[in-house]
């Protein structure tokens, strides 16, 4: 069973299990009728569930101390897994696509990041010069998208070691993505955005200054930072 198919069957059978756990007696046939193309997998899981899972104690919220036997088993598993552990190789080809995988709409992603949709689209389309993007936003993106920071940096074409030196080259390298061929700084996109709330704008101004990314020494409304 491929991954996508398995997850679909998991979602179907999760409902069945939930019904059983809440004391209902769901009809197997209801599920098989509704998802005939998954009938074999559903039947297999349901048979397994009633054979081995139906009367399992539920997860405990305590933290029992494990006996030597089971601690040893966990250590064995860890030793088996260790050799295959490498550094994460995750790649992001689209911020919005990755967010969609996490069931986040564009609006939800923008809200979680504290930016407006127009700025989010500029980030997606690489029309913001990568090295002008605050590190805080990179961290936040990594957290919300549940991807390594390195993957987010790679999406923007930011090299961790050569970030500063390559500003111009990166902007040129991403030219094919740019709308109207015009790249701008993150600060400019903040200033220009009509969708960003004043509160959000101010918060970003503060952050830009904190990260020493604020240019022109301009006053940005309100006069003071923080």
């Amino acid at each position, binding site marked *: 069973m491929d991954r996508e198919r398995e997850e679909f069957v*998991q979602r179907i059978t999760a409902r069945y299990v939930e019904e059983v756990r809440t004391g209902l007696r769901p009809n197997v046939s209801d599920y098989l009728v509704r998802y005939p193309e998954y009938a074999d997998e559903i039947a297999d899981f349901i048979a397994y569930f009633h054979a081995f899972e139906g009367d*399992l104690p539920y997860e405990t919220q305590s933290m029992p101390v494990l006996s030597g036997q089971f601690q040893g088993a966990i250590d064995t598993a*860890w030793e088996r897994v260790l050799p295959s552990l490498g550094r994460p190789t995750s790649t992001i080809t*689209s911020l919005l696509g990755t967010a969609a995988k996490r069931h986040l*709409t564009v609006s939800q992603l923008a809200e979680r990041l504290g930016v407006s949709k127009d700025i989010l689209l500029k980030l997606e389309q690489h029309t913001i010069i990568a090295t002008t993007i605050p590190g805080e936003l990179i961290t936040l993106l990594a957290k919300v998208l549940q991807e390594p920071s390195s993957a987010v940096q790679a999406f923007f074409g930011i090299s961790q070691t050569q970030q500063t030196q390559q500003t111009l080259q990166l902007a040129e390298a991403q030219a094919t993505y740019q709308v109207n061929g015009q790249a701008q700084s993150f600060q400019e996109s903040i200033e220009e955005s009509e969708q960003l709330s004043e509160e959000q704008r101010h918060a970003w101004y503060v952050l830009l200054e904190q990260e020493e990314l604020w240019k022109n020494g301009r006053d940005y409304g309100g006069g003071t930072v923080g």
Partner: protein
Amino acid sequence: MLCLVKVADIVNEEPAPSVEDDGDVELVKRRKGLADRYDALPGYGTVAYWKAIEACVEEALPLELLVRCVREAIGRGDDIGRKRLFEVIFRRTHSANEYWANNVIKTMNLHAEEQRVLVSDLYADLCECVMRALMDGDRLFWEESFQHCLSFERRHVFRTFMTREGRWNNEAQKKTARIPRALVDSLDQPRQLSTGDLIEIHIEDEMAQKDLLAVEHSDLPRLILDLPDKLKAVVLLIFWEGRTEKDTAMVLGITDRTVRNRLRDALEILRRKLEPEREVLYG
């Protein structure tokens, strides 16, 4: 331009519809609740963070959140943090995992010491599979329904383990199968369902049918598990749910004849499995 077209598509689309999107407001709320709790966690790696992770009883975090934390640890390259998170997860799920492992091994009729060793092996296999699953950031359902994913993983480990031990669909092992029956005396009686209906089955293998009807209802799933996938749904519907052949055909969208053929094949397999017990019972 291709890139821009793709972006436009994404912008105009909500996440693709899936099985849970049939107006399931509860699920959306649950997702949001989990996301909010995750966002509210103290800064990664701080004392407050670990206090929250290792909290017990009422303050214990949902396991789904711990999965996200494992993935964050991986993203940060924090091997020690990852191992610490695994420890918390395995301790929280230990009772169920231990019970399950003992239950599975009990079906194998082994000596106590052999059982103990195999329980450890099975438990280690499960932990390994769970670790690998949690480290795979594409397996998103773990972040929504940890317990159900764990059930799926246990099923996978169970099957792999039994295959490795030579006990999956292995005729040579049939004499070790334990098929407890409470209804042995009613072997010659047709099965009456809780609804009061009698099951109508017209098949040639009457002995196998009687044997199967005599098996305790709660023991049926274990027998069904041993069948080829194609045959499981038919047996489940007829013997577990008490459907008629005609009903079963309608549910599965196949002909009555196909139902009969599958039932015959299933009963043939089960008859061979039940044969040793009949010998014990009747000599």
